[in-house]
């Protein structure tokens, strides 16, 4: 079987905008909306998510020739869950504050459809390098989406931004509804509409 020449640059770039996992593929929105309330948490979530996605894509791509079709999903889920558990243990050991902020959504990365989606659709069929490029791109896209949305939500919802000890306040009468899920949907819809209008996605 003649494999196409892998285009690593495209695989890494597509996740950022053209196939952004949140804005275009619209996957994993539940934890996404729950975490995108503060920029700090969003960065923590991106790191945890990126670690799980990179690890899982690497392993599934390595073992892709030995995975029987019938049990591929359970095998992928075992691998994803293991990486999530490893992440959780490490975060609890080294950054209890981050663990406190991410709460239940850290273990819930296991059932995040973006991860299983990338494994099933991409890394279980492609070479290791392509899979890693794809995972990096998807993480960047996820990070871009969650950090931009959480910036808007935190700004409108609390009136300022708190960022690793630094904080500033712009206005004193925040609309705390932006911190709730409906506010998340509003911001998300607004950004989607804007990006569509501009023709970015």
């Amino acid at each position, binding site marked *: 079987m003649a494999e196409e020449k892998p285009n690593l640059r495209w695989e890494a770039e597509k996740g950022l905008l053209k196939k952004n996992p949140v804005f275009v593929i619209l996957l994993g929105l539940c934890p996404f909306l729950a975490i995108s309330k503060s920029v700090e948490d969003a960065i923590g979530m991106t790191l945890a998510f990126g670690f799980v996605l990179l690890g899982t894509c690497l392993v599934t791509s390595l073992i892709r020739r030995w995975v029987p079709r019938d*049990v591929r999903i359970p095998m992928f889920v075992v*691998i994803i869950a293991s990486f999530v558990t490893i992440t959780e243990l490490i975060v609890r050991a080294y950054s209890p504050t981050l663990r406190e902020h991410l709460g*239940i959504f850290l273990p819930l990365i296991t059932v995040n459809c973006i991860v299983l989606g990338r494994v099933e659709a991409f890394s279980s069929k492609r070479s290791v390098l392509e899979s890693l490029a794809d995972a990096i791109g998807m993480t960047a896209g996820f990070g871009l989406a969650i950090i931009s949305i959480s910036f808007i939500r935190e700004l409108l919802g609390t009136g300022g931004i708190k960022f690793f000890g630094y904080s500033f306040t712009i206005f004193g009468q925040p609309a*705390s509804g932006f911190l709730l899920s409906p506010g998340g949907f509003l911001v998300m819809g607004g950004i989607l509409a804007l990006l569509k209008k501009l023709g970015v996605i």
Partner: protein
Amino acid sequence: MKILKPVLALTLTCIVWGLILGYVHRITESKIAEAERKEREKMIAEIFPGCSFEEENSIFYCFQNNRLVGKAVEVETKGYGGTMRVLVGINADNTVRGVRVLSHNETRGIGSRATEPSFLSQFENLGKEQLAFKPQGQVEAITGATISSRAILEAVKRALEYG
């Protein structure tokens, strides 16, 4: 046997990852326990500055110059987002010395305001009878975060009764 291959593959995956997880657990276990202990000790030291303390049945007795000045009790309570762990420092005369939240899952920016010093400092020096929301008591609940406020109040009440 066609069935054998998937069964073997899945079993092998589980065994390998089980082993890896066991290993990671073993190397992080002590770190995690230490991080939790440090967090608690830091908060007790905030409530009782300059004290040494001894643990007995998960109550921390705090001594200053070998004299018992109070104790710290950890109470679990139910907030808006699930379990909250609240640390309550109690003076020897059974009034509140200070309150700290060890862990919580309240909504950031809304319920979480009830875990911040501006709310928690109200409890300082209150006795059992004053532990109620205004006008019956001395505690001002946070608008929009009634459930979280009540959870903390209940925790402090329970800590006083318990001790």
